[in-house]
Structures are given as structure tokens and as C-alpha cells.
């Protein structure tokens, strides 16, 4: 039997765990969340991505019960949350500022929620020790929060929110202060926890790579609205707008006028340059403004003119960014556009054939990029 893909959002019979219904949140005149409607399903790992101040924390706080929507409703497991206080919600939140209790030791911080449940002492101790091991804090159990490092504090906050094994866990930038190695380990740990416990995670992150690694779906936000929600692969390969394409990863954007031609669309983008040929499922009107987005790794760079590429143009190497495993070439076209092309560094540096000021060809196939209306 083939393994079924986890995609409850495609199943019309599936009931969402969280439902935002036309939720608006205002602070005075300022609109922090703007008429937002979104479903999140049980066992999802839902990542919120967006620039600072776009409303990610506000969404979390409404789920946890610290802010009430100005308009609209939020349902968790089918229940309207309007009158449910934070302590009556099966939701735990890890705060962006950690909010560790300064008067309690690391151990007591983690035990805090468990004690409120009235569990017996041994069960609490076992659970706290388990959390300490998981976050590698066993050595620091007796210390106070001001006696440990920033990264350690972040792990205490994480451990504290995990301890109660809630149905829904809200993580507001949970791993920002950790070094890369520990962050990756913790990411896999989180995914492991998620798999084992079936907890639903909503996570805010500024790290795209993190969102890509852990998330079942990624929501890209801007100014209180969700611009696109999709799986990490879809978000990356098929962004719905220039904003999303630009926000996630590196991208070349070329704007022009559309010339539809059956399955294909030709884009007239500069005088004296051949039109860019792309493939799309959406209908474009002739002469409509259109944006062509292509990832640097899908642009080939060569010193010889490529024989059979759908799109090719000549330019001059402006800059080279060497990143170890890959190099990014910034190629300036005669029109003034700069196109980024990425290649894997399979050869040693000294034998690199292309260098600054070299005349080069950049090329890509007709399916490599996406065509966007906005």
C-alpha cells in the first residue's frame, strides 16, 4: 500500500482544528490583522512567515486568548473561542520574549504548568526531567533564568511550553537564538515530537529554511493579510505573486507585456531583446502587464552560446558571490537588468572558468520560471 500524502487541506471531509473567520484585529486605528480567513488542520506544522510587524505574533496571541478579535470569530476544534480565557484553552504558547519566571529555577519553570494540572509529584518530576533531557538543559535545572545564556533561556521556554503536551502549540520564533547546529537538531526534535504526539504546531519564524524544513504548510503574510498558503515546495516553485516569490528565497523578476500564444506566453520586456517564453495555466490578456520570476539556480550560465535553449541572452559578469557549495553570478544585460545565475561548485576555485567582466550567455527553459500577474 502506498503511503498517503499528509494533505488534510485537500480533503473536503476533514474538519479543521483552527478556523479564522473574517478576523480583524485593530489597535486603535491601526489594523494589525485584516479580515483574515484561514483553516489550520490537526497535526499540521503550520509556519507563519512575513516581515517584522505584519501580525504574526498578533495571530498567535488571539489563538492563545490574550487578544480578542475586533471582528470575526476564531474556532478551535469547532468551539467558538470568544469567551474562553487563556487558562481554559488546550493551547500553550512559547513567547517571543520567553517570559520565564525570574523567581523560579529552570526546573520549576518547566514544572509550572504541570503543577497547575494537579499531577502527582513523581509524574511531574519524570516529565520535567524528560523535557530537560530533550532540550539538553539537565545541567542547568537548578539555575535561575538570569544565570543562563540567551539560547539556554530559549530552550527553557520551549521546554516549558512542550511540557503540558497541549493539543495546539504556538511557537513564536522558537529557535532564533540558537546556533545553526543546535537549531537543526531542535527542528528535527520538534518534527519528531509532532509525529509522536500528534500535536498541532503553529510556528512563527524569520528563517525561511526553517519554515521549509519543518512546515507542512507555509503562510506568507504581509500587513495583516495572508498572501499565500501552500506547501513549502509549492510556495517556492509556484509563488502566487511577486511579493511571495521575492520573500521566499532568491529570485529574478523581469516585468513586461504579455503576448499569449496558446499554452505559452511570450513576454515583451525590452526593446531589441528576444521575448521571454514561459508556460502558464492562467490566462493572460494580450498587452497585460506581467512579471516573470525565475530562481537563480534555474538560470544556466555559459561562455559558449547554448544550442537549444528556449530563452537566452548575452551579458557581462558583474559580480560573483562565492558561497562554498554554490556560486551566484550577477550578470548585467545590455538593457541594464541584472540576472542572477547560480551554479554548483563542482570544481575547485582555481579552475573556475568564468570570472569578472567575462562576456557570458544566460539561458533557461520555457518551464523554468513562473508568470505572475502581480
Amino acid at each position, binding site marked *: 500500500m502506498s503511503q498517503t500524502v499528509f494533505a488534510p487541506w485537500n480533503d473536503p471531509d476533514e474538519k479543521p482544528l483552527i478556523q479564522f473567520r473574517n478576523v480583524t484585529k485593530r489597535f486603535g486605528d491601526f489594523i494589525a490583522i485584516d479580515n483574515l480567513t484561514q483553516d489550520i488542520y490537526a497535526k499540521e506544522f503550520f509556519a507563519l512567515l512575513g516581515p517584522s510587524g505584519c501580525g504574526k505574533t498578533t495571530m498567535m496571541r488571539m489563538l492563545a486568548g490574550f487578544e480578542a478579535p475586533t471582528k470575526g470569530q476564531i474556532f478551535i476544534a469547532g468551539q467558538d473561542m470568544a469567551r474562553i480565557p*487563556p*487558562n481554559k484553552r488546550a*493551547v*500553550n*504558547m512559547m513567547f517571543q520574549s520567553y*517570559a520565564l519566571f525570574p523567581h523560579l529555577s529552570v526546573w520549576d519553570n518547566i514544572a509550572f*504548568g504541570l503543577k497547575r494540572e494537579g499531577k502527582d509529584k513523581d509524574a511531574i518530576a519524570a516529565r520535567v526531567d524528560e523535557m530537560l533531557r530533550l532540550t539538553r538543559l539537565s545541567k542547568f535545572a537548578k539555575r535561575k533564568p538570569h544565570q543562563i545564556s540567551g539560547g539556554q533561556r530559549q530552550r527553557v521556554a520551549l521546554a516549558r511550553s512542550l511540557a503540558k503536551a497541549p493539543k495546539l502549540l504556538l511557537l513564536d520564533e522558537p529557535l532564533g537564538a540558537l546556533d545553526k547546529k543546535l537549531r537543526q537538531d531542535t527542528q528535527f526534535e520538534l518534527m519528531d515530537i509532532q509525529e509522536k504526539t500528534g500535536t498541532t504546531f503553529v510556528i512563527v519564524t524569520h528563517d525561511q529554511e526553517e519554515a521549509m524544513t519543518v512546515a507542512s504548510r507555509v503562510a506568507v503574510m504581509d500587513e495583516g493579510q495572508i498572501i499565500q498558503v501552500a506547501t513549502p515546495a509549492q510556495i517556492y516553485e509556484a509563488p502566487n505573486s511577486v511579493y511571495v516569490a521575492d520573500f521566499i528565497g532568491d529570485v529574478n523578476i523581469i516585468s513586461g507585456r504579455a503576448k499569449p500564444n496558446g499554452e505559452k506566453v511570450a513576454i515583451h520586456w525590452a526593446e531589441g531583446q528576444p521575448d521571454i517564453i514561459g508556460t502558464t495555466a492562467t490566462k493572460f490578456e494580450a498587452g497585460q502587464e506581467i512579471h516573470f520570476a525565475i530562481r537563480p539556480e534555474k538560470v544556466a550560465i555559459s561562455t559558449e552560446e547554448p544550442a537549444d535553449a528556449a530563452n537566452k541572452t548575452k551579458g557581462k559578469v558583474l559580480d560573483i558571490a562565492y558561497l562554498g557549495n554554490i556560486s551566484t553570478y550577477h550578470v548585467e544585460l545590455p538593457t541594464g537588468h541584472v540576472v542572477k545565475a547560480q551554479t554548483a561548485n563542482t570544481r575547485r576555485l582555481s579552475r573556475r572558468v568564468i570570472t569578472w567582466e567575462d562576456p557570458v550567455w544566460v539561458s533557461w527553459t520555457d518551464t523554468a520560471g513562473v508568470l505572475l500577474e502581480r
Partner: protein
Amino acid sequence: MRRFILIAVPYLWLVALFLIPFVIVLKISLSDVALARPPYMPQLDFAAGWSGLVSFFAELDFDNFWFLTTDDLYWKAYLSSLQIALVSTVLTLIVGYPIAYAMARAAPEWRPTLLMLVILPFWTSFLIRVYAWMGILANEGLLNQFLLWLGVINTPLTILNTNTAVYIGIVYTYLPFMILPIYSALERMDDSLLEAAEDLGCSRLSAFWLVTIPLSKNGIIAGCFLVFIPVIGEFVIPSLLGGSGTLMIGKVLWEEFFSNRDWPVASAVAVILLLILVIPIILFQRNEQKQREAEG
């Protein structure tokens, strides 16, 4: 050298204003009462040289301290002072904590104003404010007139010249000393801690007990000491608002000094009072120290 001077200045200050007066009081407490001016013996006579000094020290003794144990007035006064100080500290805490809490929770733009209102009474004379309380609490005073007018009572309440009036006066006078340290502790507290507590299953009330109170603990301790220590030796409030039944060591001291003109006994009373106060003062310093360490 520069460092030495920097340290020396405050020490000279302490020696001049605390140590020397204390030594003088101690010396008087070891002397004997006399009909003279000043009213005690012996006097230090520098002209007599070394032998004068020897005979001077030979005449000092602990008779006055011994005398304090023979009359139960004194230890009763000490105990009563401690009791009044303790009760009024608790009362001040009960009244002061909610005020400090409300101030810390008020909108930030209101806080300086509220702080100002707490400090404002200090701008008028303490004596005048205590006299004002006499006017309020007297049998024909404002409070009784108001209550009679409301019809809550038929005969005036006797408040003035009782311990109740003393408690009212103390709580009123020392309230700012309780409010300010608690307010400063509460104001520093991060609101997200309460949210975290609620998130982890606390009700508002239990979050208050488990987070707010422990985090304002140092402020509470500081406030209690700032009230307790001076109230033990309080003299003006019990003598103006209290009655004949109000026994406080400050009053006893005053009577020994001015009515009986027995400076040596009065000084002995003061020395004992100081010894009693040393314990809470050391505890208070410890608390401050601990707080600084926790912050640093």
C-alpha cells in the same frame, strides 16, 4: 590617594553624624543623674589630665540599665511599641499594596501623576498633618459629624486618644514608604509573565499569588522595614493622637528626658531601643543586598 579621599568623605560624615552622637548618648546612659547643668555626672574634665580621665571612667556604671529592669513600665513600653509597630506595618501593607498595584497597572502616562500624589503630602509639615487628624477624629470632629449626618451612628465615636487613632495616624503617615518600594518592584514586572502563567493554566488570582506576589517580595520586605523601624521609636503620633493608654517607648523616652529631666535613664532607653532596632536594620540591609545581587 584619590580613592582614599573618596571613601574617607562619607566615612567622616558617618562618624560625625552617627558614631559621635551615639558615643555621647552611650556615655550619658552610663552616667548618674545630678542637679546640675547638664543634669548628669561625671563630666569629662580635660584640665585634670590623666587622673581626671581615670576617675571619669571609674564613675561610669550600668545602674541605669539595671534600673530599667526594675520597673516593668519600660519593658511593657518596648513590647507595646513592637506590637504597635508590627500591627501598623501589617495595616500599612494591606492598604499600601493595592494602591501600589493600581499605580503600576495604570496607563504609563498617568503613573508620574499618581506618584506625585503619593509624595505630595510630604510637602506640608508632618505636625500640621497630624493636627489635622486630631480635627478629623475628635468627638466633634469632621468624621463624627459626617457619620452623624449620614445617620450611620447616633452617638459620636471615640476615636481620638485611642490606639485606633494611633494606627490611623501611623498608616497615613508611613503609607508612602510602603507604596514606593512595592510600586517600583511591580512596575518593573513584565506583563508577559502573567500571560505566561495564565497560558500554563493559572487563573488570574493564582497568577497573582504565584507570580506577582513573589516578584514584588523584595518591595514588600523593603516597605515593611521602612515602616516598622521608624514606627517603633515613633513619638509624635502616639502623644498627639493616642491616649493615656497608649504606651510607646518614644513617649516614655520623651517623659524621662523632659518631664523627669533624667537624661541618663532616657539615654539608656534610647540605647536599648537602638539595640532592638539593629536586628531589623541588618535584616533590611541583607534584603537590599540580595536584591542587588539578583539584579546584577
